[in-house]
Protein backbone atom coordinates (compact mmCIF):
# COMPACT_ATOMS: atom_id res chain seq x y z
CA UNK A 1 0.00 0.00 0.00
CA UNK A 2 1.74 3.07 -1.18
CA UNK A 3 -0.10 5.63 0.98
CA UNK A 4 -0.30 3.75 4.26
CA UNK A 5 -3.25 3.77 6.66
CA UNK A 6 -5.39 6.85 7.34
CA UNK A 7 -3.46 7.80 10.48
CA UNK A 8 -0.25 7.59 8.47
CA UNK A 9 -1.90 9.83 5.93
CA UNK A 10 -2.77 12.35 8.62
CA UNK A 11 0.82 12.27 9.85
CA UNK A 12 2.02 12.82 6.33
CA UNK A 13 -0.21 15.79 5.75
CA UNK A 14 0.89 17.24 9.06
CA UNK A 15 4.49 16.88 8.01
CA UNK A 16 3.67 18.43 4.66
CA UNK A 17 1.99 21.40 6.30
CA UNK A 18 5.03 21.81 8.49
CA UNK A 19 7.37 21.77 5.49
CA UNK A 20 5.09 24.19 3.67
CA UNK A 21 5.24 26.55 6.60
CA UNK A 22 9.05 26.36 6.81
CA UNK A 23 9.33 27.10 3.11
CA UNK A 24 6.92 30.01 3.44
CA UNK A 25 8.97 31.46 6.29
CA UNK A 26 12.19 31.07 4.31
CA UNK A 27 10.63 32.81 1.31
CA UNK A 28 9.29 35.59 3.50
CA UNK A 29 12.71 36.15 5.09
CA UNK A 30 14.36 36.36 1.66
CA UNK A 31 11.73 38.77 0.36
CA UNK A 32 11.88 40.96 3.47
CA UNK A 33 15.69 41.05 3.23
CA UNK A 34 15.60 42.27 -0.36
CA UNK A 35 12.94 44.87 0.31
CA UNK A 36 14.75 46.16 3.39
CA UNK A 37 18.02 46.43 1.43
CA UNK A 38 16.23 48.56 -1.14
CA UNK A 39 14.59 50.69 1.54
CA UNK A 40 17.84 51.14 3.43
CA UNK A 41 19.68 52.14 0.26
CA UNK A 42 16.93 54.61 -0.59
CA UNK A 43 17.07 55.97 2.96
CA UNK A 44 20.83 56.51 2.76
CA UNK A 45 20.46 58.14 -0.65
CA UNK A 46 17.73 60.47 0.57
CA UNK A 47 20.13 63.26 1.64
CA UNK A 48 21.41 63.34 -1.93
CA UNK A 49 17.93 64.05 -3.28
CA UNK A 50 16.87 66.54 -0.64
CA UNK A 51 20.07 68.59 -0.60
CA UNK A 52 20.29 68.88 -4.36
CA UNK A 53 23.66 67.13 -4.41
CA UNK A 54 22.32 64.63 -6.90
CA UNK A 55 23.58 66.63 -9.86
CA UNK A 56 26.99 66.67 -8.27
CA UNK A 57 27.06 62.89 -7.89
CA UNK A 58 25.91 62.27 -11.44
CA UNK A 59 28.60 64.44 -12.96
CA UNK A 60 31.62 63.57 -15.03
CA UNK A 61 34.47 64.21 -12.60
CA UNK A 62 35.68 62.35 -9.51
CA UNK A 63 38.18 64.44 -7.57
CA UNK A 64 37.09 64.21 -3.95
CA UNK A 65 39.88 66.48 -2.71
CA UNK A 66 38.95 69.20 -5.17
CA UNK A 67 35.23 68.92 -4.45
CA UNK A 68 34.06 66.87 -7.45
CA UNK A 69 32.15 63.70 -6.66
CA UNK A 70 30.89 62.48 -10.03
CA UNK A 71 30.33 58.73 -10.39
CA UNK A 72 29.54 58.76 -14.10
CA UNK A 73 33.07 57.56 -15.02
CA UNK A 74 32.44 54.55 -12.78
CA UNK A 75 29.04 53.86 -14.41
CA UNK A 76 30.72 53.98 -17.82
CA UNK A 77 33.56 51.81 -16.52
CA UNK A 78 31.17 49.14 -15.23
CA UNK A 79 29.31 49.04 -18.55
CA UNK A 80 32.47 48.96 -20.64
CA UNK A 81 34.10 46.17 -18.67
CA UNK A 82 30.94 44.04 -18.59
CA UNK A 83 30.15 44.47 -22.28
CA UNK A 84 33.74 43.68 -23.20
CA UNK A 85 33.82 40.61 -20.96
CA UNK A 86 30.54 39.45 -22.47
CA UNK A 87 31.85 40.07 -25.97
CA UNK A 88 34.90 37.92 -25.17
CA UNK A 89 33.12 35.13 -23.29
CA UNK A 90 29.88 34.77 -25.24
CA UNK A 91 31.14 33.23 -28.52
CA UNK A 92 33.31 30.76 -26.65
CA UNK A 93 30.54 29.81 -24.27
CA UNK A 94 28.00 29.26 -27.04
CA UNK A 95 30.51 27.26 -29.04
CA UNK A 96 31.18 25.06 -26.01
CA UNK A 97 27.43 24.48 -25.58
CA UNK A 98 26.80 23.41 -29.19
CA UNK A 99 29.97 21.35 -29.21
CA UNK A 100 28.95 19.50 -26.07
CA UNK A 101 25.32 19.18 -27.15
CA UNK A 102 25.62 17.82 -30.66
CA UNK A 103 29.12 17.75 -32.12
CA UNK A 104 31.50 16.28 -29.60
CA UNK A 105 32.11 12.56 -29.01
CA UNK A 106 30.79 11.57 -25.59
CA UNK A 107 34.12 11.44 -23.68
CA UNK A 108 35.19 14.88 -24.92
CA UNK A 109 31.77 16.32 -24.10
CA UNK A 110 31.90 14.84 -20.61
CA UNK A 111 35.38 16.21 -20.03
CA UNK A 112 34.40 19.68 -21.20
CA UNK A 113 31.31 19.68 -19.02
CA UNK A 114 33.35 18.67 -15.97
CA UNK A 115 35.85 21.42 -16.74
CA UNK A 116 33.15 24.09 -16.94
CA UNK A 117 31.58 22.86 -13.70
CA UNK A 118 35.00 22.98 -12.10
CA UNK A 119 35.44 26.56 -13.31
CA UNK A 120 32.31 27.67 -11.49
CA UNK A 121 33.95 26.58 -8.25
CA UNK A 122 37.13 28.64 -8.61
CA UNK A 123 37.03 31.62 -6.24
CA UNK A 124 37.21 35.03 -7.89
CA UNK A 125 40.30 36.00 -5.95
CA UNK A 126 42.25 33.16 -7.56
CA UNK A 127 41.53 34.55 -11.02
CA UNK A 128 42.53 38.02 -9.82
CA UNK A 129 45.68 36.84 -8.12
CA UNK A 130 46.89 34.74 -11.04
CA UNK A 131 46.16 37.55 -13.47
CA UNK A 132 48.17 40.08 -11.43
CA UNK A 133 51.25 37.92 -11.85
CA UNK A 134 50.64 36.50 -15.35
CA UNK A 135 48.34 38.67 -17.43
CA UNK A 136 49.31 42.11 -16.11
CA UNK A 137 53.04 41.83 -16.97
CA UNK A 138 52.06 40.34 -20.33
CA UNK A 139 49.82 43.29 -21.16
CA UNK A 140 52.45 45.74 -19.96
CA UNK A 141 55.42 44.27 -21.79
CA UNK A 142 53.91 42.85 -24.97
CA UNK A 143 51.30 45.45 -25.74
CA UNK A 144 53.12 48.24 -23.87
CA UNK A 145 49.67 49.10 -22.64
CA UNK A 146 50.48 51.47 -19.78
CA UNK A 147 50.74 49.81 -16.40
CA UNK A 148 49.07 46.60 -17.48
CA UNK A 149 46.25 47.30 -15.04
CA UNK A 150 43.77 48.12 -17.77
CA UNK A 151 40.20 47.74 -18.90
CA UNK A 152 41.24 44.95 -21.27
CA UNK A 153 43.19 43.00 -18.62
CA UNK A 154 40.25 43.03 -16.24
CA UNK A 155 37.74 42.22 -19.01
CA UNK A 156 39.74 39.18 -20.17
CA UNK A 157 39.86 37.80 -16.63
CA UNK A 158 36.21 38.65 -16.09
CA UNK A 159 35.29 36.78 -19.26
CA UNK A 160 36.76 33.62 -17.71
CA UNK A 161 34.57 34.19 -14.70
CA UNK A 162 31.31 34.62 -16.59
CA UNK A 163 31.95 31.91 -19.18
CA UNK A 164 30.68 29.04 -16.98
CA UNK A 165 27.57 31.06 -16.06
CA UNK A 166 26.68 31.50 -19.71
CA UNK A 167 27.49 27.88 -20.54
CA UNK A 168 25.40 26.44 -17.71
CA UNK A 169 22.37 28.63 -18.40
CA UNK A 170 22.43 28.03 -22.14
CA UNK A 171 23.19 24.34 -21.76
CA UNK A 172 20.08 23.94 -19.63
CA UNK A 173 18.02 25.59 -22.37
CA UNK A 174 19.51 23.43 -25.10
CA UNK A 175 18.77 20.26 -23.19
CA UNK A 176 15.11 21.23 -22.90
CA UNK A 177 14.65 21.56 -26.64
CA UNK A 178 12.35 18.86 -27.99
CA UNK A 179 14.58 16.02 -29.29
CA UNK A 180 12.10 15.31 -32.11
CA UNK A 181 13.31 18.55 -33.65
CA UNK A 182 16.86 17.27 -34.05
CA UNK A 183 15.62 13.81 -35.01
CA UNK A 184 13.47 15.25 -37.78
CA UNK A 185 16.29 17.37 -39.11
CA UNK A 186 18.65 14.40 -39.00
CA UNK A 187 16.06 12.40 -40.96
CA UNK A 188 16.03 15.19 -43.52
CA UNK A 189 19.74 14.62 -44.00
CA UNK A 190 21.14 17.61 -42.07
CA UNK A 191 24.74 17.22 -40.95
CA UNK A 192 25.39 18.01 -37.28
CA UNK A 193 26.77 21.44 -38.20
CA UNK A 194 23.74 22.18 -40.37
CA UNK A 195 21.53 21.10 -37.49
CA UNK A 196 23.22 23.62 -35.21
CA UNK A 197 23.00 26.38 -37.80
CA UNK A 198 19.48 25.88 -39.09
CA UNK A 199 17.65 24.18 -36.23
CA UNK A 200 19.29 24.59 -32.83
CA UNK A 201 20.31 28.25 -33.08
CA UNK A 202 16.89 29.48 -34.23
CA UNK A 203 15.13 27.25 -31.72
CA UNK A 204 17.26 28.45 -28.83
CA UNK A 205 17.51 32.14 -29.73
CA UNK A 206 15.67 33.14 -26.60
CA UNK A 207 17.98 31.04 -24.44
CA UNK A 208 20.97 32.78 -26.03
CA UNK A 209 19.55 36.14 -25.00
CA UNK A 210 18.83 35.05 -21.44
CA UNK A 211 22.31 33.53 -21.06
CA UNK A 212 23.91 36.73 -22.37
CA UNK A 213 21.92 38.93 -20.01
CA UNK A 214 22.75 36.74 -17.01
CA UNK A 215 26.43 36.76 -17.97
CA UNK A 216 26.31 40.53 -18.22
CA UNK A 217 24.68 40.76 -14.81
CA UNK A 218 27.34 38.54 -13.27
CA UNK A 219 30.05 40.73 -14.82
CA UNK A 220 28.49 44.00 -13.58
CA UNK A 221 28.17 42.60 -10.07
CA UNK A 222 31.74 41.38 -9.73
CA UNK A 223 33.99 43.47 -7.47
CA UNK A 224 37.26 41.76 -6.85
CA UNK A 225 38.50 41.31 -10.41
CA UNK A 226 38.02 44.92 -11.39
CA UNK A 227 39.42 46.09 -8.04
CA UNK A 228 42.55 43.98 -8.49
CA UNK A 229 43.09 44.39 -12.23
CA UNK A 230 41.37 47.43 -13.73
CA UNK A 231 43.63 50.02 -12.07
CA UNK A 232 40.82 51.95 -10.38
CA UNK A 233 41.58 55.34 -11.96
CA UNK A 234 38.34 57.31 -12.02
CA UNK A 235 38.30 58.13 -15.71
CA UNK A 236 36.14 57.31 -18.71
CA UNK A 237 37.02 54.16 -20.70
CA UNK A 238 38.30 55.98 -23.77
CA UNK A 239 40.41 53.04 -24.95
CA UNK A 240 41.01 49.39 -24.11
CA UNK A 241 44.32 50.27 -22.51
CA UNK A 242 43.29 52.83 -19.93
CA UNK A 243 42.89 52.17 -16.26
CA UNK A 244 39.27 52.40 -15.15
CA UNK A 245 37.17 52.07 -12.01
CA UNK A 246 33.90 50.13 -11.80
CA UNK A 247 30.95 50.99 -9.54
CA UNK A 248 31.60 47.95 -7.36
CA UNK A 249 35.30 48.74 -6.96
CA UNK A 250 34.38 52.34 -6.23
CA UNK A 251 32.17 51.22 -3.36
CA UNK A 252 34.94 49.01 -2.00
CA UNK A 253 37.52 51.80 -2.19
CA UNK A 254 35.46 54.67 -0.82
CA UNK A 255 33.40 52.86 1.82
CA UNK A 256 36.16 53.38 4.38
CA UNK A 257 36.27 57.18 4.08
CA UNK A 258 34.87 59.51 6.72
CA UNK A 259 31.16 58.69 6.97
CA UNK A 260 30.21 62.38 7.10
CA UNK A 261 31.82 63.20 3.77
CA UNK A 262 30.24 63.67 0.40
CA UNK A 263 32.54 60.97 -1.01
CA UNK A 264 30.93 58.51 1.39
CA UNK A 265 27.43 59.44 0.27
CA UNK A 266 28.38 58.87 -3.37
CA UNK A 267 28.87 55.21 -2.39
CA UNK A 268 25.17 54.87 -1.73
CA UNK A 269 24.30 56.44 -5.04
CA UNK A 270 26.61 53.89 -6.68
CA UNK A 271 24.92 51.11 -4.70
CA UNK A 272 21.48 52.27 -5.76
CA UNK A 273 22.51 52.39 -9.42
CA UNK A 274 23.84 48.83 -9.17
CA UNK A 275 20.74 47.59 -7.37
CA UNK A 276 18.35 49.13 -9.88
CA UNK A 277 20.45 47.79 -12.75
CA UNK A 278 20.34 44.26 -11.38
CA UNK A 279 16.61 44.62 -10.77
CA UNK A 280 16.09 45.68 -14.36
CA UNK A 281 18.15 42.76 -15.63
CA UNK A 282 16.01 40.33 -13.66
CA UNK A 283 12.77 41.89 -14.85
CA UNK A 284 14.03 41.71 -18.41
CA UNK A 285 14.78 38.02 -18.10
CA UNK A 286 11.35 37.35 -16.64
CA UNK A 287 9.66 39.26 -19.46
CA UNK A 288 11.57 37.33 -22.07
CA UNK A 289 10.54 34.10 -20.39
CA UNK A 290 6.86 35.08 -20.40
CA UNK A 291 6.56 36.77 -23.77
CA UNK A 292 7.82 33.97 -25.95
CA UNK A 293 6.51 30.76 -24.51
CA UNK A 294 5.36 29.26 -27.78
CA UNK A 295 8.76 29.70 -29.38
CA UNK A 296 10.83 27.68 -26.95
CA UNK A 297 10.36 24.34 -28.73
CA UNK A 298 10.56 22.60 -25.41
CA UNK A 299 9.40 19.08 -24.97
CA UNK A 300 6.25 18.64 -22.90
CA UNK A 301 6.89 18.40 -19.20
Amino acid at each position, binding site marked *: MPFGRPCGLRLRSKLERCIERILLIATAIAAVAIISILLLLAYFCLPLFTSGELGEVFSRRW*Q*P*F*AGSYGILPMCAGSFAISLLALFLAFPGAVAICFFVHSLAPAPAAGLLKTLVHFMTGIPTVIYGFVS*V*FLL*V*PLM*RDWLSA*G*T*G*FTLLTAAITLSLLILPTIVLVFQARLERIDPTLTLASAALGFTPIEQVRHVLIPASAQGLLVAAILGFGRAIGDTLIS*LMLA*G*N*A*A*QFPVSLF*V*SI*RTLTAHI*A*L*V*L*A*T*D*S*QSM*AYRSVFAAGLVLFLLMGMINLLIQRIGRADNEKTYEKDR
Partner: protein
Amino acid sequence: MKTINLLWLITVCFLVSAVMPFDQGHCNALESFKNLNGTISIAGGTAHIPVMNDAAKTIMTFNPAVRITVEGGGTGVGVQKVGEGLVDIGNTGRALSPEEIGKYGLRSYAFALDGVAAVVNAQNSVSNLSAEQIMDIFAGKISNWKEVGGRDAAIHLFSRDEASGTREVFWKKLLKQGTVAQSANIVPSNGAMKVAVAQDPNAIGYVSIGHIDESVKALQLDGVAASQENALNGSYPVVRKLYMNTRGEPNPLVQAFIDYILSPDGAAIIRRHGYFPIE
Protein backbone atom coordinates in the same frame (compact mmCIF):
# COMPACT_ATOMS: atom_id res chain seq x y z
CA MET B 1 27.54 23.84 34.10
CA LYS B 2 28.89 27.30 33.57
CA THR B 3 31.07 27.20 36.66
CA ILE B 4 32.46 23.83 35.63
CA ASN B 5 33.39 25.28 32.23
CA LEU B 6 35.03 28.21 33.91
CA LEU B 7 36.92 25.93 36.25
CA TRP B 8 38.13 23.91 33.30
CA LEU B 9 39.27 27.01 31.52
CA ILE B 10 41.15 28.26 34.55
CA THR B 11 42.79 24.85 35.05
CA VAL B 12 43.83 24.69 31.42
CA CYS B 13 45.20 28.23 31.55
CA PHE B 14 47.08 27.37 34.71
CA LEU B 15 48.57 24.22 33.23
CA VAL B 16 49.52 26.01 30.04
CA SER B 17 51.20 28.83 31.90
CA ALA B 18 52.92 26.31 34.18
CA VAL B 19 54.62 24.54 31.29
CA MET B 20 55.58 27.74 29.46
CA PRO B 21 59.35 28.23 29.33
CA PHE B 22 60.65 31.19 31.30
CA ASP B 23 64.18 31.11 29.98
CA GLN B 24 63.98 34.60 28.45
CA GLY B 25 64.78 37.14 31.11
CA HIS B 26 63.09 40.06 29.37
CA CYS B 27 59.53 38.83 29.24
CA ASN B 28 58.29 41.13 32.00
CA ALA B 29 55.84 42.87 29.72
CA LEU B 30 54.47 39.49 28.71
CA GLU B 31 53.87 38.56 32.37
CA SER B 32 50.73 40.65 32.43
CA PHE B 33 49.13 38.23 29.96
CA LYS B 34 49.74 35.29 32.30
CA ASN B 35 46.30 35.10 33.86
CA LEU B 36 44.35 36.53 30.97
CA ASN B 37 42.38 34.82 28.28
CA GLY B 38 40.00 35.82 25.52
CA THR B 39 40.33 37.41 22.13
CA ILE B 40 41.55 40.74 20.83
CA SER B 41 40.45 41.77 17.35
CA ILE B 42 42.47 44.39 15.51
CA ALA B 43 41.72 46.04 12.17
CA GLY B 44 42.58 49.16 10.22
CA GLY B 45 45.79 50.78 8.97
CA THR B 46 47.91 48.52 6.80
CA ALA B 47 51.19 50.15 7.90
CA HIS B 48 50.60 48.78 11.41
CA ILE B 49 50.21 45.17 10.35
CA PRO B 50 53.86 43.98 10.59
CA VAL B 51 54.15 45.26 14.19
CA MET B 52 50.71 43.97 15.21
CA ASN B 53 51.36 40.52 13.73
CA ASP B 54 54.73 40.19 15.43
CA ALA B 55 53.38 41.28 18.81
CA ALA B 56 50.35 38.99 18.42
CA LYS B 57 52.56 36.03 17.60
CA THR B 58 54.79 36.61 20.64
CA ILE B 59 51.82 37.00 22.98
CA MET B 60 49.94 33.99 21.62
CA THR B 61 53.07 31.84 21.93
CA PHE B 62 53.47 32.96 25.54
CA ASN B 63 49.82 32.37 26.41
CA PRO B 64 47.78 30.32 23.92
CA ALA B 65 44.58 31.19 25.81
CA VAL B 66 44.81 34.65 24.26
CA ARG B 67 43.72 34.84 20.63
CA ILE B 68 44.60 37.91 18.61
CA THR B 69 43.33 38.51 15.09
CA VAL B 70 44.88 41.19 12.87
CA GLU B 71 43.13 42.49 9.77
CA GLY B 72 43.87 45.34 7.40
CA GLY B 73 41.35 47.52 5.64
CA GLY B 74 43.05 50.88 5.95
CA THR B 75 42.81 53.81 8.31
CA GLY B 76 39.18 54.58 7.45
CA VAL B 77 38.11 51.03 8.19
CA GLY B 78 40.02 51.20 11.47
CA VAL B 79 38.00 54.19 12.65
CA GLN B 80 34.67 52.74 11.52
CA LYS B 81 35.18 49.27 12.93
CA VAL B 82 36.38 50.36 16.36
CA GLY B 83 33.74 53.09 16.47
CA GLU B 84 30.93 50.63 15.74
CA GLY B 85 32.37 48.18 18.28
CA LEU B 86 33.22 45.55 15.66
CA VAL B 87 36.86 45.30 16.76
CA ASP B 88 38.71 46.04 20.00
CA ILE B 89 41.49 48.07 18.46
CA GLY B 90 41.20 50.19 15.32
CA ASN B 91 44.52 51.29 13.87
CA THR B 92 44.91 54.62 12.12
CA GLY B 93 47.82 56.19 10.29
CA ARG B 94 46.66 59.69 11.24
CA ALA B 95 45.34 61.49 14.30
CA LEU B 96 41.56 61.22 14.65
CA SER B 97 39.45 64.21 13.76
CA PRO B 98 37.50 65.90 16.60
CA GLU B 99 34.26 64.70 14.91
CA GLU B 100 35.43 61.09 14.97
CA ILE B 101 36.46 61.33 18.65
CA GLY B 102 33.19 63.05 19.53
CA LYS B 103 30.95 60.70 17.57
CA TYR B 104 32.30 57.44 18.99
CA GLY B 105 34.17 58.44 22.19
CA LEU B 106 37.48 57.07 20.93
CA ARG B 107 40.81 57.02 22.76
CA SER B 108 44.07 57.15 20.84
CA TYR B 109 47.43 55.63 21.68
CA ALA B 110 50.30 56.82 19.49
CA PHE B 111 53.03 54.19 19.48
CA ALA B 112 55.34 54.71 16.52
CA LEU B 113 56.74 57.26 14.16
CA ASP B 114 56.53 56.32 10.51
CA GLY B 115 57.75 57.90 7.34
CA VAL B 116 56.17 57.64 3.92
CA ALA B 117 58.59 57.34 1.05
CA ALA B 118 58.20 57.50 -2.69
CA VAL B 119 59.24 54.13 -4.11
CA VAL B 120 60.25 52.92 -7.55
CA ASN B 121 61.07 49.53 -9.03
CA ALA B 122 64.37 48.04 -7.88
CA GLN B 123 65.69 48.17 -11.48
CA ASN B 124 65.07 51.89 -11.85
CA SER B 125 68.33 53.90 -12.10
CA VAL B 126 66.74 57.00 -10.55
CA SER B 127 67.43 57.12 -6.81
CA ASN B 128 67.03 60.76 -5.83
CA LEU B 129 64.30 63.26 -6.70
CA SER B 130 63.46 66.71 -5.44
CA ALA B 131 60.10 67.40 -3.82
CA GLU B 132 59.31 69.59 -6.83
CA GLN B 133 60.00 66.73 -9.26
CA ILE B 134 57.85 64.30 -7.28
CA MET B 135 54.99 66.81 -7.25
CA ASP B 136 55.29 67.25 -11.02
CA ILE B 137 55.41 63.50 -11.59
CA PHE B 138 52.27 62.87 -9.55
CA ALA B 139 50.50 65.81 -11.20
CA GLY B 140 51.30 64.28 -14.59
CA LYS B 141 53.49 67.19 -15.72
CA ILE B 142 56.57 64.96 -15.90
CA SER B 143 55.56 61.78 -17.69
CA ASN B 144 58.84 60.22 -18.84
CA TRP B 145 61.68 58.91 -16.69
CA LYS B 146 64.30 60.53 -18.94
CA GLU B 147 63.11 63.97 -17.78
CA VAL B 148 64.43 63.15 -14.31
CA GLY B 149 67.59 61.36 -15.42
CA GLY B 150 66.24 57.86 -15.97
CA ARG B 151 65.78 55.83 -19.12
CA ASP B 152 63.37 56.70 -21.91
CA ALA B 153 60.15 55.17 -20.64
CA ALA B 154 56.71 56.38 -19.59
CA ILE B 155 56.20 56.87 -15.86
CA HIS B 156 53.48 54.65 -14.42
CA LEU B 157 51.73 56.34 -11.50
CA PHE B 158 50.36 54.41 -8.54
CA SER B 159 48.41 56.09 -5.76
CA ARG B 160 46.28 54.98 -2.83
CA ASP B 161 42.54 55.08 -2.18
CA GLU B 162 40.68 58.00 -0.62
CA ALA B 163 40.53 56.44 2.86
CA SER B 164 44.26 55.71 3.15
CA GLY B 165 46.26 57.33 5.97
CA THR B 166 49.45 56.80 3.96
CA ARG B 167 47.96 58.75 1.06
CA GLU B 168 46.89 61.52 3.38
CA VAL B 169 50.36 62.17 4.80
CA PHE B 170 52.07 61.84 1.40
CA TRP B 171 49.57 64.18 -0.21
CA LYS B 172 49.70 66.77 2.57
CA LYS B 173 53.40 66.79 3.41
CA LEU B 174 55.08 65.93 0.11
CA LEU B 175 52.65 66.86 -2.64
CA LYS B 176 51.55 69.95 -0.65
CA GLN B 177 47.91 69.03 -1.43
CA GLY B 178 48.66 69.28 -5.14
CA THR B 179 46.67 67.42 -7.76
CA VAL B 180 47.25 63.76 -8.52
CA ALA B 181 46.75 62.86 -12.19
CA GLN B 182 43.35 61.34 -12.89
CA SER B 183 44.99 58.47 -14.75
CA ALA B 184 46.97 57.27 -11.71
CA ASN B 185 46.23 53.68 -10.76
CA ILE B 186 44.68 53.27 -7.32
CA VAL B 187 45.68 50.35 -5.10
CA PRO B 188 43.91 49.50 -1.85
CA SER B 189 46.80 48.77 0.57
CA ASN B 190 50.50 49.23 1.32
CA GLY B 191 51.06 45.60 0.39
CA ALA B 192 49.27 45.93 -2.95
CA MET B 193 51.34 49.05 -3.68
CA LYS B 194 54.55 47.15 -3.05
CA VAL B 195 53.49 44.31 -5.34
CA ALA B 196 52.45 46.71 -8.09
CA VAL B 197 55.70 48.73 -7.96
CA ALA B 198 57.88 45.62 -7.59
CA GLN B 199 56.32 44.18 -10.76
CA ASP B 200 56.45 47.24 -12.99
CA PRO B 201 59.92 48.57 -13.96
CA ASN B 202 58.48 52.03 -14.75
CA ALA B 203 56.29 52.46 -11.71
CA ILE B 204 56.38 55.09 -9.01
CA GLY B 205 54.28 54.92 -5.87
CA TYR B 206 54.61 55.48 -2.14
CA VAL B 207 54.58 53.22 0.90
CA SER B 208 55.04 53.39 4.62
CA ILE B 209 58.76 52.97 5.44
CA GLY B 210 58.03 49.83 7.45
CA HIS B 211 56.90 48.10 4.26
CA ILE B 212 60.07 48.82 2.30
CA ASP B 213 62.18 45.77 1.47
CA GLU B 214 64.49 44.69 -1.34
CA SER B 215 61.59 44.30 -3.80
CA VAL B 216 61.24 48.09 -4.16
CA LYS B 217 63.63 51.06 -3.96
CA ALA B 218 62.88 54.03 -1.69
CA LEU B 219 63.79 57.34 -3.31
CA GLN B 220 65.88 59.93 -1.53
CA LEU B 221 64.02 63.19 -1.16
CA ASP B 222 66.26 66.17 -1.95
CA GLY B 223 69.22 63.94 -1.06
CA VAL B 224 67.79 62.85 2.29
CA ALA B 225 67.25 59.11 2.71
CA ALA B 226 63.85 58.05 4.00
CA SER B 227 65.29 56.33 7.07
CA GLN B 228 63.90 56.23 10.57
CA GLU B 229 66.88 58.25 11.89
CA ASN B 230 66.18 61.05 9.45
CA ALA B 231 62.48 60.87 10.25
CA LEU B 232 63.29 61.16 13.96
CA ASN B 233 65.75 64.05 13.71
CA GLY B 234 63.37 65.95 11.48
CA SER B 235 65.45 66.08 8.30
CA TYR B 236 63.00 63.77 6.48
CA PRO B 237 59.71 65.66 6.57
CA VAL B 238 57.11 63.18 5.32
CA VAL B 239 56.33 61.57 8.66
CA ARG B 240 53.33 60.70 10.73
CA LYS B 241 52.46 58.89 13.92
CA LEU B 242 50.81 55.49 13.98
CA TYR B 243 47.93 55.11 16.41
CA MET B 244 45.95 52.37 18.08
CA ASN B 245 42.42 53.47 19.03
CA THR B 246 39.87 52.00 21.40
CA ARG B 247 36.28 52.94 22.07
CA GLY B 248 36.17 54.23 25.63
CA GLU B 249 38.18 52.51 28.36
CA PRO B 250 39.82 49.29 27.05
CA ASN B 251 39.18 46.02 28.89
CA PRO B 252 42.09 44.48 30.86
CA LEU B 253 43.19 42.24 27.99
CA VAL B 254 43.20 45.05 25.42
CA GLN B 255 44.91 47.30 27.96
CA ALA B 256 47.60 44.64 28.42
CA PHE B 257 48.12 44.52 24.64
CA ILE B 258 48.46 48.29 24.41
CA ASP B 259 50.86 48.31 27.38
CA TYR B 260 52.89 45.59 25.68
CA ILE B 261 53.20 47.59 22.44
CA LEU B 262 54.27 50.63 24.48
CA SER B 263 56.75 48.60 26.61
CA PRO B 264 60.48 48.17 25.83
CA ASP B 265 59.64 44.75 24.31
CA GLY B 266 57.10 46.40 22.05
CA ALA B 267 59.65 49.08 21.16
CA ALA B 268 62.05 46.37 20.03
CA ILE B 269 59.36 44.92 17.75
CA ILE B 270 58.54 48.38 16.38
CA ARG B 271 62.23 49.01 15.64
CA ARG B 272 62.65 45.61 14.04
CA HIS B 273 60.01 46.53 11.46
CA GLY B 274 61.61 49.83 10.55
CA TYR B 275 59.46 52.20 12.60
CA PHE B 276 60.55 54.33 15.52
CA PRO B 277 58.87 53.84 18.89
CA ILE B 278 57.46 56.84 20.74
CA GLU B 279 56.27 57.00 24.33
